[in-house]
């Protein structure tokens, strides 16, 4: 019997269950586990659950070193941009040490961070940093869009023997959905068809899945049937499911909260241009953030970010192309 769960809760449940299952899982970060009353400290003790200084390089580097020696550290980073001060650890240490050692070590660690907080956090705290993480061999990237995926992907991330960046979207943290009972794992590299459709394929991640589903709902009322696909992990990327869908619909709209050249959307567009070209009946269309930093003030912030309306009009433009072509 599935449990109803909030996104934030689902992550906590996943971490708790994995820490119960495996004594090597440790969990630390800034501004957590301050006192003995912290629920994780109470359950797992001060060795396995710790508070850290504002020292992301040391936090991530320590995770890498500890992972090589058999722990499975989860580092709580809060906001994904805080990884940037320690980006070498994320893309040039954790994913490379195994390879450089000729397979002698492995680095099972999870870097957990929220992202995309579209609520007036302005230029430095509202970004989507998965783009730069997608092309790093040895690094996996999970980006859940529902509580169920959040739980299942976190469990898979913790059990994965590779470093994983796990990014949860701030705007989804209070959203609820049913989560399957039992030891629920979502495999990496398997996209999820969040809504089936026949006229157009929409690929989106995290918050943009929610917006795309809303857009699909509206479009359905106008007789346009949109299939909404969430890759769920951006590395490995399930290009196959996307191309299967394009084969059916002939149209592809990619929705992404990042500016276009920093987006996962454009990577997927490139893959489809190479591997799925023959199925396309219209140009690929991207709905991304405009090419600006994220401004503080609400009217400007909204203007810059993708919206349901922008998705709808993008879909109509590529579906309209059919009318001309067919």
């Amino acid at each position, binding site marked *: 019997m599935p449990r109803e769960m909030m996104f934030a809760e689902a992550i906590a449940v996943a971490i708790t269950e994995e820490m119960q299952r495996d004594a090597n899982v440790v969990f630390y970060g*800034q*501004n957590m586990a*301050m*006192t003995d009353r912290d629920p994780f400290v109470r359950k797992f003790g001060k060795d396995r659950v710790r*508070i*850290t*200084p*504002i*020292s*992301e*390089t040391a936090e991530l580097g320590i995770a890498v070193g500890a992972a090589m020696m058999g722990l499975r550290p989860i580092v709580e980073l809060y906001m994904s*941009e*805080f990884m*940037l*001060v320690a980006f070498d650890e994320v893309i040039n240490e954790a994913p490379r040490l195994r390879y450089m050692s000729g397979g002698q070590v492995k680095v099972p660690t999870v870097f957990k961070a929220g992202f995309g907080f579209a*609520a*007036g*956090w*302005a*230029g*430095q*705290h509202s970004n989507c940093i998965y783009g730069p993480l997608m092309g790093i061999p040895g690094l996996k990237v999970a980006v859940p869009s529902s509580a169920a995926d959040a739980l299942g992907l976190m469990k898979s991330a913790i059990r994965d023997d590779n470093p994983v960046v796990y990014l949860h979207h*701030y*705007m989804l*943290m*209070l959203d609820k959905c049913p989560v399957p009972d039992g030891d629920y794992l979502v495999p990496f590299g398997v996209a999820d068809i969040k809504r089936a459709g026949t006229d157009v394929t929409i690929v989106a991640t995290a918050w943009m899945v929610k917006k795309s589903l809303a857009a699909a709902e509206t479009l359905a009322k106008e007789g346009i049937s949109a299939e909404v696909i969430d890759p769920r992990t951006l590395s490995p990327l399930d290009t196959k499911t996307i191309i299967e869908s394009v084969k059916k619909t002939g149209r592809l709209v990619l929705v992404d909260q990042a500016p276009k050249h920093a987006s996962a959307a454009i990577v997927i567009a490139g893959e489809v241009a190479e591997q799925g070209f023959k199925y396309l009946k219209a140009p690929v269309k991207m709905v991304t953030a*405009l*090419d*600006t*930093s994220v*401004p*503080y*003030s*609400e*009217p*400007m*912030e*909204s*203007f*810059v970010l993708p919206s349901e309306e922008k998705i709808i009009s993008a879909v109509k433009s590529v579906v309209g192309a059919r009318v001309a072509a067919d």
Partner: protein
Amino acid sequence: MPNSSQLSRDRLIWMYTQMCRIREFEERVKRTFVEHPGVIRGHAHLADGAEASIVGCLATRQENDLVMPSYRCHGYPLVLGTPARALMAEIYQRKDGVCKGFGGSMHLADPTRHFPTASGIIGQGIAHAAGAAYAAQVKKTGQVIYSFFGDGSSKQGAFYETLNMAAVWKLPVVFVLENNEYQAYTHVSLEDANAKAGDPLSQKAKAFSIPGVTVDGTDPLKVYDAVGTAVDRARAGEGPSLIESKFYRMSPHGNAITVPPVPTQFQEHESIEVYGNKAEFEAAKKNDPIGKFRAHLIGNGTFADADAKKIEESVRAEMEDVVKFALASPLPSPADALNYVWA
């Protein structure tokens, strides 16, 4: 040598007034979350408790000296002369904001008044300050740069790297480590090795062979003397100093982090909310820098209770106007967002 005992009556009253302005401004920011929910977005960090430290520091400034704070940046521009209206308007997302609504509470800036920018990322502003000092050195402007950052920020690599470079390059910069006992919800003793060992954080200066001084940041005159010495040293070309200014942050770290449309507000201080240590908070309240300085000035005859009240009243009136102005200021147009991406 700076000597606070030689400060003029006018200057002392100016200092008290600025302290009151900061406090009242921050009170109004805080109240806005209750009185006008949604008007302030994102994350706002207040300077109540820091008034003596801020004003004691900036009272040592010469005309063109620069001020480079962190994201907790409301207090400094008030002292530098930025109109409080433009600051509040910025925090309220308005077109009349000092950054036209692009920056918000964490990213105020008023370069024309010697406050270039503030970064929201821990530690980076320290390096930016050293960079401004490098420019001053190359251009021989005679400027000193004031770099402000928190106790928690002194655990970021940027802090150490910058202090070493500033020392080697003998940059005209004063590093003010505002030790308000907390980095967000974390007490300094939980994350700083000096603090855990009972040593002052100014001891970090030894890693760079520069002067390191700890000062009572609740007393603007002590701050004035300590920082003034460091400023003299910097201006004389002898390089940077590290000042640990100790005070207590009176408000919580910032408004609670929530997901819209769940409303956000300031909660209780972390000492109570997180650590259940009401005594600590009550002691800090008793040691409030504004009350102490007020009593000191009355005690030494600088002004009378009635004079102080008049100041406080005028400050309240100023900030009442400021809130009204900011509320009435228009929001930016959506497409304004396309400006200022490229220079």
